């Protein structure tokens, strides 16, 4: 089967690329094994969360981003520029009309409480988490659930210097529950009625109630509104351990839009091989045992992610890119991959594919290697998204603009 554009990878960058292409009227195939970081991380939208941009003084992110880009021209943002990053973020936002929206507080970063009891700077915040930005100034009650091991309300309360209450779910004393089960229960009025009553009894003088981020998958604002009514106080969510419900909300919205627009949506299969002839990718092959199926397109977006998803592979000696065997940048001997301490900024995180300003992969001399392949997402070189707190921003901006480059070439 032939497509205008094939997107390899179904994480946030792949999804943005597919959305961009289908909204431009193109025939798109997106293929991915797993859903990337959307299942795992907090999934508020980080753009650039370095310390100077994380302070209480409200600096506009856009201005500081422009300066930062000038200082880091090789960074993926360097190929895009602050204005165009803004455009990509708007495109993402367009998928989330009210009531569940992603917004920046005062146009700058805010500090959000995390499920580890710390704070992290982030930019676009979903409506259900926004009130968490006021946590330092308010009296909070945190809610945990016995058996839900991915969120320890009491531990967070010790960190945030507030109170916590852990609800015992009747009949569930032996069982472990995960966030998907809990999120589903939250969607049931009888469950909310029960916990609403329980929590109301526990309130002393608190002004705000914090839940783990499990306020439903389909209608989080509806769930929250109902809880607020029953408890009598405003409510917010704090991201917990995987599976990430906020991330699943994002994935579901993309999936809905892409399928509605006729994108061929192949979740569950990976590209086993790409066939390249004279600087052009001719086709990709997908292994769904025992079958090998080929797909062709005029252009390809490689958004296969880093090590967890297998976009990059590392063994004891070397790192390689799995599909096209593209050369990698920032690549040193193994002894130099890691810092001494776990929380160091490890050099290996900066390894990835170097591209020119149009997202074509390039060799050491800067020459584009594949003329119909564009690279997007965290597989790109020269970023350290963990330290920078820039993951979603990189995924959204590069996914959007790499796809635009691809479409322009058609």
């Amino acid at each position, binding site marked *: *089967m*032939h497509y205008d554009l094939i997107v390899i990878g179904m994480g946030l960058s792949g999804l943005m690329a597919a959305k961009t292409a289908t909204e431009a009227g193109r025939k798109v*195939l997106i293929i991915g*094994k*797993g*859903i*990337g970081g959307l*299942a*795992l991380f907090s999934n508020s939208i980080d753009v650039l969360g370095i310390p100077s941009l994380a302070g209480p003084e409200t600096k506009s992110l856009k201005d500081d981003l422009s300066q930062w880009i000038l200082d880091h021209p090789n960074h993926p943002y360097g190929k895009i520029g602050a204005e165009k990053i803004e455009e990509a973020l708007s495109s993402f936002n367009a998928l989330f009309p009210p009531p569940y929206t992603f917004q920046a507080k005062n146009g700058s970063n805010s500090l959000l409480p995390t499920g580890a009891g710390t704070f992290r700077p982030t930019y676009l915040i979903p409506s259900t988490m926004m009130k968490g930005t006021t946590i330092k100034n308010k009296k909070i009650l945190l809610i945990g659930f016995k*058996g839900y091991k991915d969120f320890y309300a009491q531990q967070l309360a010790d960190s945030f210097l507030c109170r916590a209450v852990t609800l015992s779910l009747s009949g*569930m004393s032996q*069982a*472990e*529950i*995960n*966030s*998907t*089960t809990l999120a*589903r229960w939250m969607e049931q009025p009888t469950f909310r009625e029960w916990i609403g009553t329980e929590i109301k009894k526990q309130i002393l003088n608190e002004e705000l109630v914090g839940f783990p981020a499990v306020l439903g998958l389909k209608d989080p604002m509806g769930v929250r509104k109902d809880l607020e009514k029953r408890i009598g106080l405003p409510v917010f969510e704090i991201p917990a*351990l*995987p*599976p*990430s419900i906020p991330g*699943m909300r994002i994935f*579901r919205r993309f*999936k*809905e839009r892409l*399928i*509605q627009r*006729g994108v*061929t*949506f*192949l*979740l*569950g*299969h*990976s590209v*086993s*091989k790409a066939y390249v002839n004279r600087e052009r990718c001719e086709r990709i092959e*997908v*292994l*769904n*045992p*025992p*079958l*090998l*199926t080929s797909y062709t397109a005029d252009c390809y977006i490689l958004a296969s992610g880093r090590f*967890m*998803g*297998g976009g990059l592979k590392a063994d004891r000696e070397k790192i390689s890119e799995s599909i096209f065997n593209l050369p990698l940048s920032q690549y040193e001997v193994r002894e130099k991959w890691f810092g001494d301490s776990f929380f160091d900024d490890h050099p290996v995180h900066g390894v990835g594919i170097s591209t020119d300003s149009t997202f074509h992969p390039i060799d050491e001399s800067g020459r584009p290697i594949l003329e119909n392949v564009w690279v997007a997402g965290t597989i790109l070189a020269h970023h350290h998204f963990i330290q920078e707190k820039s993951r979603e921003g990189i995924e959204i901006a590069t996914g959007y603009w790499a796809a635009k480059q691809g479409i322009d070439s058609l």
Partner: protein
Amino acid sequence: MNQKSWPKSNSDHCIRCATCMSICPVSRVTPLFPGPKQAGPGAERFRKAGDSSENEWIDLCMGCHLCDLVCPSNVPISELTLLAKVTYFHKKGRSLRDWLLSHPSQFGWLGSSFPSITNSLLNHPLVKCMLDLLFKIDRGRPFPKYQSPTFRQWFKTHSSRGEKKVAYFYGCYTNTNEVEVGRATVKVLEANGFEVILPPQNCCGLPMLGTNDLKGARKMALKNIPSLLQTIRSGVDIIFSSTSCGHMIKHEYSHPLNILGAEEIANHTFDLFEFLRNLKESGNLNIQFKKLKIKAAYFAPCHLRSLGIGFPALEILRLIPGLRIDNIEADCCGLGGTFGFKKEKYAISQEIGKDLKEAIDRLNPEMVLTDCEGCRMQIRHLTGLKVLHPVQVLGDALL
């Protein structure tokens, strides 16, 4: 990854990311099932080769394969769980109930010989009560109705003509319970210039997998392989209208059943709508449609998702003028083939189905279309709506 090294049953590849936990329909509705992460690679670390699983909860896995689709590490999660289940039940022994549920083909012919008696008996409250108490087949689950004549019998009286030949694997359910699906399939294929032939065939064996009878599944597969091989070797492709039978033949005959010849057959076996989509790509699809003013909703069965062909039925149906077709945003109907008939699993099956029902209610369609007979049964049970195979609507749309 190349063809020679497709996923081995290596649980060490699991990085415990819990993405599978985000999609498993069973662990979403009941904490009794710890989820695919635990059932598959997790518990595997405690099972030595040949050891059975220690826990009955292993049988709560429906075999929907959704976990496989989201695992970034290529762990064959549902296969690990299936093999553990098989070993568990091999040691424990299987019940007569499970034999009954997995061998519908044995008495399907009986049902179709005396359909009115069979249908009234099977759905009589007293009989259902007895089946519930004696065999633990939940009384809440309606049995499908048997029809006469069967699809095979009808086909004998039908003369199929066309320039090229195509072989149809119709499946037990089409034969005895939904003959109209078979007839619509034949109509659509003939309208595209194909003469339809029916290769000798038996039950694909999938119900045996659902009752953890690997040996039984192998037996059915070995019965089918010779005739299917002969068919494709004579240059005729095989199509299936049931995504469950199709998935069994295309994938499960190779893994985990490891049947010789399965790979060769898989390369020439296609889902009906996948086949039609290929015709469309080459400009050979008959698109002479009349206008159908219907508001329908489409549900993609789990086995279809696992086939990795996208949603070809949705793509083809969108070509019909006047037809409004929305994709239902839900992941699993909850029936799981034989799973939802079992008394100890009925409630779980219905709880999973609740999410689907809500999604359908939101769309408010006149009818629901889906390629799997199990899903059709379940959606009828959940909503009371008219539920058809997409080929039936396509057949109606042809001029």
